[in-house]
């Protein structure tokens, strides 16, 4: 299956209303400084005074990429295109691209949880995806996000480690869920969670005949079964700009210049996780407003996942 | 060290002239010096000096489990350590790139089973195998690292003694191995086909081999070839330049030709030519005693360390030959000795140079001449031995000596 053909030629299943005339020409942004009337002035202005540039834009009730404050970017999902994995998906939220690949290996369960397998998620932010990352060990951001995803998976119980046990105390599956960011343009968690759900739905594991007396394992590659998935997670990110304006589904620049960030993860209709790592405070009303907005978005994403699965 | 444009031009014109700055022709190597078996606690070792390039290789062997996907094979691993003493560039992590490049190239060169058969290192399928660690220490860099390292590695592997396995105990999943305790109960690794690396360096329009540091800087690009017998086991382009297709083929041709010469030279040095024959008093043919070079098939390329003579004479009649044996061994019973019993006198003679066991055996003339071993002061004048250059040396000395003041008067 040609992965990018799907990513690019098929009309995305979920596309928020957005017309091209909505797009702000950079040159329309009003610039106060007379000295700056050169060809690339808007771009230069953006590079020199990014925060002011944003304020000027937002004062006109529009975001630099032409979206209204509460509009989401189009989401694309492609599943099962990497056949060296046991389950894989590629999710795009606007330009943010996340590849999720799941590889299953066999291992011995931990002594204190003999009937549980392992789920090992890791998010990789390679230097490829953005100029702000350097080669070497994972950045702080990657570590924080990895832990957040691990917590979300564990708390939501979308995969039950008990389902991954083959023979108590002897043999279990270990799912290595690796996320790789290919393009970092904000709302990373949203894209990760969509990719995760997509990949989990395509995940199949071969059946294993285990003989505990001899410690013999025999894997039947032909007999592959999906694992039970207990819930569908949807995550939505908002940023708070200048302590008052709330922007949905931020781009990387909006994330950089904002004063606070909130990520809301829903499990169906239930609230699963709210992640707000410091920054400017958010009022209760605003928070509920955000949750409502994510609730509205949730069925659309679920639909997208279903359509993607059907297409496969 | 960066060269200036003028120096580069000088080197370049020299290559075009087929008279390099140290007097060599394009296909000439600088003389080398090899020492084997110099690290006592290693299983095999070698040290090679090529002008100012100095490489020490030690081989260590351990018992290991084979890779699950290759149950029949042992393991071979190369590790290169770039000492900061070798060149100031290696300070800190400066040598890392070079180290990885050399070790990767060696692994690739030794990867084909036609070149080095890892199956011979297997002890028990899927359970036990030998793991050979080849540790390469760069002591000094004087150009042409790849070639020097590959020669030293081959010599060290040739020198390596793999202990013999006496007994294998299998108990369920546990396997225990007993290694022969006898120190000299070993086998050698089969390294006859082990690859030799040759760096062919392109300077201007010509290709040269064995570049020194200055020449390496002038090169637009070079090709490292690993040659085993008449086949390439690895080819790697290095340097920052690109090569035309025909140049690449030229380089390969030159590389394979030189590599075969180099391999032959190394083999000549490693192996020891000894007379091998024997005769007893009952035999009428005394060629072995009087003229060992006359014996048909009486000279062997030994891969042992010593040529020996064991001569047994009667005490009565005094000096009458009972038997004589010319041969080669790794460890002579007596290096140089005369042992007497009631009836016989036995002469043991051993030596380490080619065809040195040709004497009568009575005198000590075959003794090992390694008195200069401890003297490390000899240096190489690159290209010395090339007739054209050496002839007029004495003439220039006179003109020139006044320029120096030697404290050692």
């Amino acid at each position: 299956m040609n992965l990018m053909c799907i990513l690019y030629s098929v009309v995305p299943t979920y596309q928020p209303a957005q017309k091209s005339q909505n797009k702000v020409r950079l040159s329309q942004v009003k610039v106060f400084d007379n000295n700056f009337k050169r060809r690339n002035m808007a771009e230069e202005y953006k590079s020199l005074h990014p925060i002011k540039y944003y304020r000027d834009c937002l004062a006109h009730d529009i975001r630099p990429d032409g979206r209204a404050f509460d509009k989401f970017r189009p989401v694309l999902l492609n599943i099962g295109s990497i056949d060296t994995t046991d389950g894989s998906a590629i999710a795009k939220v606007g330009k943010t691209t996340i590849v999720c690949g799941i590889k299953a290996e066999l291992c011995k369960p931990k002594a204190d949880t003999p009937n549980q397998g392992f789920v090992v998620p890791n998010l990789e932010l390679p230097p490829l995806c953005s100029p702000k990352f350097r080669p070497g060990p994972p950045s702080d951001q990657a570590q924080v996000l990895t832990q957040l995803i691990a917590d979300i998976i564990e708390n939501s119980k979308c995969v039950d480690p008990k389902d991954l046990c083959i023979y108590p105390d002897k043999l279990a599956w270990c799912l290595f869920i690796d996320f790789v960011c290919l393009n970092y343009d904000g709302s990373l968690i949203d894209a990760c969670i969509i990719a995760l759900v997509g990949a989990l739905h395509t995940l199949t594991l071969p059946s294993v005949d285990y003989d505990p007396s001899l410690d013999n394992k025999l894997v039947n590659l032909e007999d592959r079964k999906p694992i039970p998935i207990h819930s569908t997670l949807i995550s939505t990110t908002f940023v708070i700009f200048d302590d008052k304006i709330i922007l949905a589904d931020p781009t990387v620049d909006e994330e950089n210049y904002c004063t606070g960030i909130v990520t809301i993860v829903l499990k169906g209709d239930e609230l699963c996780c709210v992640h707000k790592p410091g920054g400017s405070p958010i009022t209760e009303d605003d928070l509920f407003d955000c949750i409502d907005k994510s609730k509205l978005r949730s069925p659309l994403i679920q639909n997208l996942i279903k359509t993607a699965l059907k297409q496969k | 060290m960066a060269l200036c444009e003028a120096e580069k031009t000088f080197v370049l014109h020299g290559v075009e002239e087929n008279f390099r700055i140290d007097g060599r022709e394009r296909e000439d190597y600088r003389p080398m010096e090899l020492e084997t078996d110099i690290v006592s606690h290693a299983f095999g070792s070698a040290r090679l000096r090529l002008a100012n390039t100095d490489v020490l290789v030690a081989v260590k062997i351990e018992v290991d489990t084979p890779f699950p996907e290759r149950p029949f094979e042992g393991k071979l691993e190369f590790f290169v350590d770039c000492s900061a003493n070798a060149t100031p560039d290696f300070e800190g992590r400066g040598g890392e790139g070079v180290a990885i490049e050399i070790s990767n190239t060696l692994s690739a060169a030794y990867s084909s089973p036609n070149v080095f058969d890892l199956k011979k290192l297997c002890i028990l399928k899927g359970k036990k195998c030998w793991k050979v660690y080849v540790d390469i220490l760069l002591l000094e860099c004087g150009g042409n690292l790849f070639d020097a390292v590959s020669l030293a590695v081959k010599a060290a592997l040739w020198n390596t003694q793999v202990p013999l396995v006496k007994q294998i105990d299998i108990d369920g999943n546990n396997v225990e191995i007993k290694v022969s305790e006898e120190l000299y109960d070993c086998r050698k690794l089969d390294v006859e086909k082990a690859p030799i690396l040759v760096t062919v360096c392109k300077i201007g329009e010509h290709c040269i081999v064995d570049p020194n540091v200055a020449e390496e800087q002038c090169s637009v690009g070079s090709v490292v070839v690993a040659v085993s017998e008449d086949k390439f086991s690895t080819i790697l382009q290095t340097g920052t330049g690109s090569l035309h297709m025909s140049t690449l083929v030229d380089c390969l041709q030159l590389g394979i030709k030189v590599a075969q010469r180099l391999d032959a030279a190394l083999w000549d040095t490693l192996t020891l030519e000894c007379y091998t024959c024997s005769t007893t008093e009952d035999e009428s043919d005394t060629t072995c005693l009087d003229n060992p070079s006359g014996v048909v098939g009486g000279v062997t390329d030994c891969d042992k360390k010593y040529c020996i003579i064991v001569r047994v004479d009667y005490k009565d009649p005094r000096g009458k030959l009972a038997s004589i044996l010319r041969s080669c061994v790794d460890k002579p019973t007596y290096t140089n000795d005369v042992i007497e019993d009631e009836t016989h006198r036995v002469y043991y003679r051993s030596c380490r140079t080619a065809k040195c066991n040709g004497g009568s055996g009575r005198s000590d003339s075959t003794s090992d001449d390694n008195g200069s071993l401890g003297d490390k002061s000899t240096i190489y004048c690159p290209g010395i031995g090339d007739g054209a250059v050496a002839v007029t040396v004495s003439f220039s000395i006179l003109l020139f000596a006044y320029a120096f003041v030697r404290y050692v008067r």
Partner: protein
Amino acid sequence: MSKKIHIRLASQRVNTSVAVNQRYPKIFTPGQEITSHNEFMRGHGTYEEDTVLKASVAGVREQVNNLISVRPLKSRYNGDIGDVVVGRITEVQQKKMENSVLLLSSVNLPGGELRRRSVEDEHMMRQFLQEGDLISAEVQSVYSDGSLSLHTRSLRYGKLSQGVLVTVFPSLIKRSKTHFHNLPVGASIILGNNGLIWICPTINKVEEGVGGFVQNLEEVIPRQERETIGRITKLCISFSTE
């Protein structure tokens, strides 16, 4: 013959000593007693312990009247005013060019201002000299930390053109009246006091080739001269390591 590759065993090494006579001077090692007479004065390379004069470096004893000093066999180059040095540029800076006199121990001796005339000159510096270029120069002054200030004001000094550089121990070069020699065998040699020896084709006096900052890259040096240069290079190496 030349196509043959020579690999020899270390055990077959022969010592080729060119020394004409075998008379060696007495070499003192650090800590060795030189004299116990206390009428002598303590010079460089010596120290006094229990009224006994001992050597602090490995070298030969030198005596001037009552002053005893030990001259080390090998030592770092210590510059003196008026020394001729050959050096390689390691760094070009705005106001000065660092001239590292590369010793075997690879110690960088930052040299001082070579010249400074105008602001334009500063900016053009890189066009005269680049990293890696070889120059010959004279030591102008020595700073207290031992670093040298060089100058190239004479036409004899300047950027070096085609030739070969040989590095020997600085102590092997004797200070003499002239360090520039045109050898009758058809080559020129500059004996830098810092142990760097430059060997090049005969310099034509009329041209004043070395002076200034021009290099002739087009000129092809004929085989004959190359051979001569090759021989001298080897001689230098063999003399220095004997």
